[in-house]
């Protein structure tokens, strides 16, 4: 399982990577905005994306839409981890095809719960 962590703050990328490592996901890479993330994803080899919403340049919601519009990437699971917490935004993300939505600040337990839920759904869909 190779996971791409996308956030403009290097410290938050590091925190998410640490939490993922604690959960047994040690194969991770980082990108600092949606455009950089999309370029990395296009090279292939990733199974999961954890992304922030609010980033300079290409935002997380734009990245999500780019992934869903791409023939090769469209089934890639995307977990949004963001401080954006307006109802409209959550609905927008859901309609764009997000697989999970975590509001910052969050706990390790929330991250584990959402990941488990996404994998469970993917497992039952497969």
């Amino acid at each position, binding site marked *: 399982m190779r996971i791409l962590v996308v956030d403009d703050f290097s*410290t938050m990328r590091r925190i998410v990577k640490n939490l993922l490592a604690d959960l047994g996901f040690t194969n991770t890479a980082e990108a600092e905005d949606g455009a950089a993330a999309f370029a990395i994803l296009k090279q292939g080899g990733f199974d999961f994306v954890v992304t922030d*919403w609010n980033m300079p340049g290409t935002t997380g919601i734009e990245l999500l839409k780019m992934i869903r519009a791409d023939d090769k990437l469209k089934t890639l699971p995307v977990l949004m981890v963001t*401080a954006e917490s*307006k109802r*409209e935004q959550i609905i927008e993300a*859901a309609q764009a095809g*997000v697989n999970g939505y975590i*509001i*910052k600040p*969050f706990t390790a337990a929330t991250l584990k719960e959402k990941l488990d839920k996404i994998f469970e759904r993917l497992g039952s869909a497969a």
Partner: protein
Amino acid sequence: MTDPARNAEITAHLRAALAAISHADDASLKAELGAIVQWQEQPLMQGLAKLSQSLGEALGELPAVDAAVGELPDACARLDHVVAMTEQATNRTLDLVEDSQKLMERLLVPGDDHEALLRALRSNLSEMALAQSYQDLTGQIIKKVAGIVRGVHDQLTAMGLPPTGGTARRKDEDPLAGSGPAIAGVDKPATSQSDADDLLSDLGL
């Protein structure tokens, strides 16, 4: 404009320009035409100078802008410093956490020097506590910046430039544009994780 000296001067330029045309002397023609254009622009330039002078006088009559406004660039530099300090403190803490995780793995190894490992862990914990001292410093800086912003707001109000109500501006704001964390008492109440979960399950997620 009716100054005879000026008229003679412009006539001379025009004659010279005609002569330049008949000699196909482009350089001279350009120079003569340039002189004529400059002569024509002079009243405009004088008018502009007058206008800028009266603007300056009018601005001078405005209430003096308080020092607080002058402190704005300074406030930005202070906030940049806060970002740098918090990033540094977070990285320091994460370094210590990662190092401690490695030490804890070694605690599971029988025969390793457990006493030394525990001493190292204890030291990491106090270093982590120390790294949190950034809060005192950044707190002071942020309070100072808040003071500057308040000063600017008061100054604008005193000048009769009350900022348009925040609610009016927020209405136009794109609700989908990223705006960072919602602040209690300032922004609309944030959706909690459990409200978000309910909303998402209503939407079939």
